[in-house]
């Protein structure tokens, strides 16, 4: 594989050889290549099948690949290729994970070729394997594999089936480049690449104007963040002369004074990039629109993996952020505000996917809060558990929409298959989906012993503990974050229960004709749901904190794997932790309002349980009518949050329209009137002058020679004396 490695990338190659003594990874490049292979194969099939569909369209026929007894090869093979490459990639990742020594101190870098090598810069196409990238790879390939399998059922009757899997495989390829890249530049390749796939998949049904608009919006908003990422890279390059992780993180402490201007600028610019990708305020507006894509896409890209890239990036750069406490406070502030705002919006949405979208934005806010307060492990922990239960929620919603879609076909009149006001009582028709979604709901609500309880509790606790650290200059601010985070956690419990009750309980509102066609999803869809449900129950046990392990939360010491993830990630996060302790002092052992870790864990889980119970009663008693007969929320505040705090309208008025107006003005005023006006004037003037000078065309050679000489002398003279 190591072909064309240029001299400049040999340095990193040498590093790999050195590390190889410690541990030799098994074909890490293949983990990345397998999804790419899937993309190429599925892509060929997609173009092949598109030939038939476009030919039919041109002749005015309908082409249904599923009309015959057996669909054509182009629609059968992706079933095996798409999930197949993912399964293999996951197996290979698992093999490497199991082989990776727990005490591996230095990351293993495997270079493949010198990507961009100039006299001053050397970027190698290289993979960096360490504890953090390993965890991410497992999540991406593992959850990704389950979602690919689910897609077989969900997208199985879509005419664009091969194209769908081509895009999905391509997405995983770029996501793996993102998490496995050995430097900021390679990470950026994955970063923009997943953005591209997100664009393609949101607009997968591209004939629909609204859907392709949503894809475009996602891409452009993401690119605003990418500018921040780019500028941060430039600043890092100016400081270090490289963009590779290892030398930058090793040298950061000596290079930057803690809290200095440059490091603060770098981290704030990185935050801008992260906010774009992870849909944090003020760049969160694209994610809810992104729900236009097929639902498994929302599960994979817009819940489990891509949108968490910002969290991964901050955790990856933990050393840099630890050196910039101001930036950290901003990161945490952005996170907590996003969490709160998105949670309020989620409370008033009727579209089942919109609720989940805002819920995702909100949970990402929790992760940002975690990495902002320096609890990098907690952030990654929540990222992992969230990948389980949010993927489950989206896929479950997918199963619901799948059923509603079939019902809508048979119903009378138009039926919005995603509007929860048209659902109700679905438990009767889809008991498995209902059960697994309840598990995910309890997990996200933070109820013990489900996965979300452990990860969310850890975030909230760390915020409290660092708020009380002796010399934390932002101690009081952290205390506010802590309070807001608690409030948001309770809102989460409410809006998720509301979703469950409106969808699965109470009377059915689908309509008589339609409701008889409601059905449980096929096995190919329910099995991934069940796997994810198991993970949503037990996933939190990989990191039971020491302080809780001897309490109720750890079943009085009988849960295994106490602080496993914490120890596992320690080689990656310990430098940042040391810097933080050096700056802030030790974290406190009590929350700002008093009380220890066990007490607050008990309080939060009990409070969440109470909210869930209250919401079941409150929402269950409310009478909903089908969407067609409903006027939406009443009252100023509910309308305000229902309309998403009017962010879109604000941006439209303040940014989109002015830029468009300015663009038109540049064209019509400057280009057409000023510049071309001048040019045309000169042209006409020259014509006039030409007519005038034509009077000099006497035909006498002497005259010409005289004028010519005069002219040359004049020009030369002007050049000399000016």
């Amino acid at each position: 594989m190591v072909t064309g490695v240029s001299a400049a990338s040999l340095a990193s190659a040498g590093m790999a050889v050195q590390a190889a003594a410690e541990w030799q990874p098994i074909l890490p490049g293949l983990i990345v290549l397998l999804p790419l292979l899937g993309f190429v194969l599925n892509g060929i099939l997609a173009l092949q099948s598109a030939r038939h569909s476009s030919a039919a369209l041109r002749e005015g026929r309908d082409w249904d690949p599923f009309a015959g007894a057996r669909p054509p090869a182009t629609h059968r093979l992706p079933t095996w290729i798409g999930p197949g490459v993912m399964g293999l990639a996951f197996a290979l990742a698992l093999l490497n994970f199991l082989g990776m020594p727990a005490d591996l101190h230095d990351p293993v870098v495997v270079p493949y070729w010198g990507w961009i090598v100039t006299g001053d810069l050397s970027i190698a196409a290289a993979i960096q394997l360490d504890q953090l990238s390993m965890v991410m790879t497992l999540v991406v390939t593992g959850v990704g594999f389950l979602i690919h399998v689910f897609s077989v059922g969900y997208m199985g009757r879509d005419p664009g089936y091969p194209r769908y899997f081509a895009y999905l495989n391509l997405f995983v390829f770029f996501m793996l480049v993102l998490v496995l890249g050995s430097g900021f530049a390679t990470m950026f390749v994955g970063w923009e690449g997943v953005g591209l796939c997100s664009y393609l998949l949101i607009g997968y049904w591209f004939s629909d104007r609204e859907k392709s608009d949503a894809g475009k919006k996602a891409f452009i908003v993401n690119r605003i963040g990418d500018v921040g990422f780019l500028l941060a890279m430039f600043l890092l390059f100016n400081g270090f002369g490289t963009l590779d992780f290892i030398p930058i993180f090793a040298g950061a402490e000596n290079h930057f004074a803690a809290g200095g201007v440059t490091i603060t600028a770098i981290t704030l610019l990185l935050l801008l990039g992260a906010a774009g990708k992870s849909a944090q305020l003020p760049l969160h507006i694209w994610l809810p629109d992104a729900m236009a894509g097929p639902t498994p896409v929302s599960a994979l890209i817009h819940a489990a993996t891509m949108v968490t890239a910002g969290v991964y990036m901050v955790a990856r750069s933990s050393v840099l952020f630890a050196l910039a406490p101001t930036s950290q406070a901003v990161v945490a502030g952005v996170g907590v505000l996003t969490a709160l705002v998105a949670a309020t919006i989620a409370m008033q949405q009727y579209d089942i996917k919109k609720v989940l979208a805002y819920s995702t934005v909100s949970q990402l806010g929790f992760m940002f809060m975690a990495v902002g307060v320096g609890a990098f492990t907690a952030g990654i922990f929540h990222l992992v558990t969230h990948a389980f239960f949010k993927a489950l929620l989206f896929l479950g919603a997918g199963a619901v929409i799948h059923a509603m879609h079939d019902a809508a076909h048979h119903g009378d009149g138009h039926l919005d298959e995603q509007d929860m006001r048209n659902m109700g009582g679905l438990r009767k028709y889809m008991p498995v989906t209902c059960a697994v979604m309840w598990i995910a709901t309890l997990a996200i609500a933070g109820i013990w012993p489900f996965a979300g309880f452990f990860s969310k509790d850890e975030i909230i606790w760390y915020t409290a503990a660092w708020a009380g650290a002796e010399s934390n200059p932002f101690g009081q601010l952290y205390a506010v974050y802590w309070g807001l985070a608690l409030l948001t956690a309770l809102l989460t419990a409410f809006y998720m229960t509301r979703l469950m009750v409106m969808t699965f309980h109470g009377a059915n509102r689908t309509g008589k004709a339609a409701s008889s066609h409601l059905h449980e999803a096929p096995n190919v869809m329910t099995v991934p749901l069940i796997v994810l449900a198991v993970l949503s129950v037990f996933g939190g046990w990989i990191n039971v904190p020491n302080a809780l392990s001897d309490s109720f939360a750890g079943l009085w010491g009988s849960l295994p794997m106490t602080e496993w993830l914490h120890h596992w990630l320690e080689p990656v996060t310990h430098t940042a932790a040391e810097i933080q302790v050096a700056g802030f002092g030790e974290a406190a052992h009590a929350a700002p309002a008093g009380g220890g870790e066990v007490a607050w864990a008990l309080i939060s889980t009990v409070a969440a349980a109470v909210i869930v119970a209250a919401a079941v009663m409150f929402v269950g008693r409310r009478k909903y009518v089908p969407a067609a007969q409903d006027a939406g929320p009443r009252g100023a505040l509910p309308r305000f949050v229902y309309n998403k705090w009017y962010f879109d309208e604000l941006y439209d008025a303040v940014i989109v329209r002015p830029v468009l107006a300015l663009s038109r003005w540049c064209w019509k005023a400057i280009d057409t009137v000023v510049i071309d006006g001048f040019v045309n004037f000169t042209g006409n003037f020259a014509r006039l002058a030409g007519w005038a000078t034509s009077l000099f065309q006497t035909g006498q050679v002497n005259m010409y020679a005289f004028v010519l000489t005069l002219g040359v002398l004049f020009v030369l003279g002007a050049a000399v004396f000016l």
Partner: protein
Amino acid sequence: MTGLLASILYEDWILHALIWLPLVGTAHVLLTSAERAKDIAFRWSALVFVLSLGLWWSFDPGDGGFTMVSTAPWIESWGVSYALGIDGISVFMVLLTTFTSAIAILGSFEYVKKRRKAFYALMLLLEMGVVGFFLATDIFLFYVFFELTLVPMYFIVGIWGGQRRIYAAIKFFLYTAVGSLLMLVAILYVYFSSGTGSFGYEAFMNAGLSLREQLWLFAAFALAFGIKVPIFPFHTWLPDAHVEAPTPGSVILASVLLKMGTYGFLRFLLPFFPEAARHPVVVMVMLVLGVVGIIYAAWVAAVQPDAKKLVAYTSVAHMGFVVIGVFALTLNGLQGGMVVMISHGISTGALFLLLGMMYERRHSRLIEDYGGIGRVAPWFATAFVITALASIGLPGTSGFVGEFLALLGTFETHMVVAAIAATGVVFAAYYMLPMVQRVLFNKLDKPENRTFADLTRREMAIMAPLVALMIWIGVHPTPFLERMEPSIEVVLERVEGAPRAAVETMEGATMVEATVNPVEDPSADPAILPAPANVPARED
């Protein structure tokens, strides 16, 4: 491969062949029938391209100077010679020219219906002029080729163009002519003041100009090349020329004619007037114009109803990246600028070809006349999307490598400029994606579009190499970067270290210098030499 090329003495004749074979082709086309003209022209251009490919192996950047040099006296009394040479900068421009010429001719088969012999003769003549421009190392020869390219392009737009072709052609001609006449004056000035009586490249490098002279001469050259690039505010000829030009004309215009401007910066402007080029005010003016071009052109592009005009404006934005990369005067910036030049040549050329295919099918350039094309023409849509992504600089495509390096290099010396320029990546998405959407996506609601044919075999043969190049340069640009680096170092050293380097080399080269140019005082800093114009004129 290298051995094979050496056995046929490739390096001895290739540069001449690349210039003169298109001319032979021109003659052949004129002698044949109108029906066969396109095939003959394509074969000649393909032959030239295949021959030029040998440069990839046989060209050795060495220390960055000219290689494969050959000189023959031409107009001896004026000191003009037929002098050719190639280095790491021009080699890519030549390859780009031979490649896109063949592609453009292949892409014109359906588009050009009238006066075909004349058209293909002019296309080959244009190729000859451009190749000659990139290979000339004699300033007089360079100027002849520079002017030579103007004439065929003028007729291509003026005869085979759209409705407003006459206006566009004249505008193109006047703009360019104004710049090139000023440059002619500047060339003559340097010629006379160098006192060597030679139009050779070396003579112009060692003309010993004062800073004040350099600034004026810089302005004249910069205007000529800046119009060609084009730099804001001299860009308004470009949208008109592009919109009116036939597809192959647009392709050549975007792919190579614009590059003549930026190539002029690297080849002539910076090395001839290094002190002016590094003067802080000059640098700032050029950087600001570059940034304005990036942002302004992106905005204007975004509101164009005409797809071809939109792409024309994006050229201005792309070339803005070249301008800032060059005038950042850093290695990364200059190399980035070069890669943008190559990448823009490929991706924008490809975009114009795709728009040409659309026009051939629907006879409209208006974006609103399309919609939903992706459903009826999936191969076309795939090629279109990949090209658009390369154009807006998605990582993994050629556009990213160039823009990234140009911005990085600019950031090293001018943070604020680079930061503003970086917003160009957002505006690139802002102009390109809506067009992609409105052409390929959305509803297929216009009945005329239902019969929109997908790519033919010939069109696939055109697009495949272009797409492959976009991805190759995006994934593995190092073979390109390492070939150009030494020559770019030479330019950079020349600009950065002109006085210092001159003094240092004086010690070893005093004797030689003294014999060549007895007027020059070896110990003196060239920067403070008396203006050679005041030296008594010599009769030689």
